[in-house]
């Protein structure tokens, strides 16, 4: 009797735990998809983190971009080797003389993955959801991409008109971005409460199949694609957080392509017979002085400190030759970049003398502890390296390092002499970089730099149509920035990817995306 009761009790407890656990496991969600993918026609791309989501309006991260570029098309797209825009879902477009009205002529016969038609209404739907009053605060790129849009008019099924409130030269570049700009199936948005993070439906070369959280996302080729159809039948995006583990995965054949590697593993990869893909990066890694208060409200002292740091040497050892030393804020391939722009050059003696004269002996530095796309070595290592240089010119540095979230708050609080930051270009337009120094928000303009002349030039640059005149404006801006030394530009991180030798036509666009439609595996 007693034994039976005990057994019942045990069974009950086991069952309780069991029920909890099974209740916790996902119910059968998707129909177990037809045939399992085969290795030979499947591309496995390993990236360092899981995408935030796959709704272009709701995400802001590079990891999401890599997947979304394969699922969606925008009205425009970037040229393969530059940030110039090319037709995509829009066959052609016209801009009115006042620069306020853009008319787009759309591709015909394009269908979304859910079978609905792509047309002018769909374009309007997608833009409208990111304009007031529908836009929400967490649509990270809505104001950036569509901030200048007044309204959208459907002319006919295949023509759409976008009216701006003020002329904006970067607007076309913005429409080629993978954030905000891609066109999502309106039906899918309506069916999913205006959030297709988990169920993306686009017009792109690949269709979404499934997403195992923190593991992988599986895509399958869209055989009804309106453009050039993809080569490989399946694409799997795998998430491997640890950099070394990602390299091991490539070398062990668990992945065909990996990204987010740093220079130190290149030899390991090439020794295993794999290939490296190196591309210039559209980003800037910099150190900023707090120009709003003593001691660095003095441009001379800023220059002296910058002089004490041997940037080329630092970049070489910290990034092992896989970051370019920055000579300006703008990446070298960008419109407006000019070779003549240079920063102060390394001169420890001059620096020491100037610093001694100023009486500066210690500074307070804050930095971040996470690796960032523009700084694979993380902010702490960078800060420590600079601490080393400054100790040689008689300046003691106190470093406070914080996790990224906390760091952002510390920046806002503004209690620092020197801080570290970086910027990832969004649309390939020079304004996208230079406007940071004109920004009022301290979490953008961490140097708290204020220069009326500079701000005026920025405003002028936005309105000026693309061309030599516009480029000259940005060159001038770069020169002002270099002379004022509010920032010490350190490096432009290059994109470093690796792939198996049997992968062909792999490329990583400078805007941080990896269109895989043209990639094949043999």
């Amino acid at each position, binding site marked *: 009797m007693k034994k039976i*009761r*005990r057994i019942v*009790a*045990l069974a*009950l*407890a*086991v069952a*309780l*735990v069991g029920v*909890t*656990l099974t209740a*916790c*496991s*996902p119910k*059968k969600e*998707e129909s*177990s998809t037809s045939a*399992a993918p*085969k290795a030979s026609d499947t591309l496995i791309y390993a990236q360092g983190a899981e995408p*935030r*989501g796959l709704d272009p309006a*709701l995400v*802001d991260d590079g990891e999401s971009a890599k997947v979304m570029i394969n699922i969606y098309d925008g009205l425009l797209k970037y040229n393969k080797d530059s940030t110039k825009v090319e037709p995509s879902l829009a066959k052609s477009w016209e801009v009115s003389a006042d620069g306020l009205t853009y008319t787009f002529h759309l591709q015909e016969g394009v269908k979304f993955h859910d079978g609905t038609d792509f047309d002018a209404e769909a374009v309007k739907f997608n833009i409208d959801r990111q304009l007031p009053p529908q836009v*929400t*605060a*967490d649509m*990270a790129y809505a*104001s*950036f991409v569509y901030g200048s849009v007044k309204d959208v008019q459907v002319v006919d099924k295949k023509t759409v008109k976008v009216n701006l409130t003020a002329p904006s030269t970067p607007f076309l570049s913005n429409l080629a971005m993978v954030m905000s700009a891609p066109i999502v199936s309106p039906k899918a948005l309506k069916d999913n409460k205006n959030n297709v*993070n*988990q169920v993306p439906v686009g017009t792109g070369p690949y269709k979404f199949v499934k997403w*195992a*959280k*923190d*593991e*992988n996302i*599986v895509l399958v080729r869209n055989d009804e694609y309106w453009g050039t159809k993809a080569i490989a039948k399946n694409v*799997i995006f*795998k*998430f*491997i*957080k*640890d950099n*070394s*583990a*990602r390299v*091991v*995965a490539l*070398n*062990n054949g*668990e992945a065909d392509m990996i990204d987010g590697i740093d220079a130190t593993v290149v030899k390991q990869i090439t020794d295993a017979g794999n290939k490296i893909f190196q591309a210039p990066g559209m980003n800037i890694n910099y150190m900023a002085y707090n120009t709003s208060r003593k001691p660095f409200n003095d441009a001379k002292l800023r220059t002296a400190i910058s002089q004490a740091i041997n940037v080329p040497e630092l970049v070489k050892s910290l990034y092992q030759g896989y970051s370019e030393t920055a000579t300006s804020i703008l990446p070298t391939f960008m419109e407006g970049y000019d070779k003549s722009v240079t920063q102060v050059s390394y001169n420890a003696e001059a620096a020491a003398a100037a610093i001694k004269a100023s009486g500066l002996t210690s500074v307070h530095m804050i930095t971040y502890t996470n690796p960032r796309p523009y700084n694979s070595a993380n902010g702490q290592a960078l800060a420590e390296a600079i601490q080393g240089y400054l100790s040689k010119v008689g300046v003691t540095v106190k470093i406070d390092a914080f996790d*990224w*979230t906390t760091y*952002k*708050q510390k920046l*806002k609080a503004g209690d620092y002499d020197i801080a570290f930051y970086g910027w*990832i270009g969004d649309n390939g337009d020079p304004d996208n970089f230079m406007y940071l120094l004109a920004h009022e*928000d301290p*979490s*953008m303009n961490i140097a708290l730099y204020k220069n009326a002349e500079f701000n005026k030039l920025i405003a002028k640059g936005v309105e000026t149509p693309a061309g030599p005149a516009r480029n000259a404006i940005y060159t001038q801006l770069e020169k002002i920035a270099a002379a004022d030394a509010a920032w010490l530009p350190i490096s432009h991180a290059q994109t470093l990817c690796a792939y198996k030798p049997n992968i062909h036509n792999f490329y990583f666009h400078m805007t941080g995306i990896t269109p895989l439609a043209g990639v094949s595996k043999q």
Partner: protein
Amino acid sequence: MLKYIFKRILMLIPVLIGVSIIVFLIMRVFSPDPAPIVLGQHATQTAVEVWRQANGLNDPIFLQYYHFITGALTGDLGTSFYTKMPVLKEIFSRFPATIELAVVAIMLASIFGILIGVVSAVKKNSIFDNAGMLLALVGVSMPIFWLGILLIIFFSGTLHWLPSSGRINPMLQPGSVTGFYLIDSLIAGNMDAFGDALRHLVLPASALAMYSMAIIARMTRSSMLETLQQDYIRTARAKGVSEGRVIRKHALRNGLIPIVTVIGLQLGSLLGGAVLTETVFSWPGIGSYTVACILKSDFPVVQGVVLLIAFVFVLVNLLVDVIYAFLDPRIKYSKKEG
């Protein structure tokens, strides 16, 4: 007994409320503002304020807690700030991975720990005993993440024997029924997938199991040494029972009783160890996810996860107590008070 279980389940409630209060305080009062992370590099002060308002972060803390707890009672733990997905969905899509890892690890730890402990006790002071106990000592002294990396370097990076990350080759991934790939692949009858999932488990489970194995081995040894000195062991020998049977049926059966408690406690510490192991092995479980969410100040997720872990933890402790009573007929929970 049933009454006791019922009572214990009732006692879950104050514990869970306590847990929710602690987490709420740490996250909402002291942690950094999630807005900059959620809103990305273009976030302006204004956008941050609008977003905070919309998500109730500017409400008084009591009101926020009230919203949270009333939601939790109806099974709604809120939406992740970062991914805008329901917290429950985010958690449960990762939970099976952690459970699978922890269960395999605790099995490894128990089997090898008990084996080493028993042999060490029986052959006390022999070479095996000394080697086993040295291993156990080093096992509790090594940082688990360091061990994990060493395993990766050696077995994945150098020998290329075992995968270093992930749960399974995505091409073999079975349809999700339970979320446990070992079980799912068996249901699907896919032995390749089963083998592959097992191969992926070897390194992380070993790294995770090491500490617990060492603890269990040491505990088993001392428990067995004590048991082997008991009078009833002498009685059993006096009956002419073979030595092997004396050890298995008499000594181990009794010595196991305290070990069960240790194993139960270890399951709790495994959930903690999973945080580090999952990070090192890119294991798609709840541990590394929670750390990421803590660092992103994704409050709703952290609240949900910790609540869930505490729930499981208390439940496992209850299970251990019940098993304890099952193993030891002398235990009765009728009058026990706490």
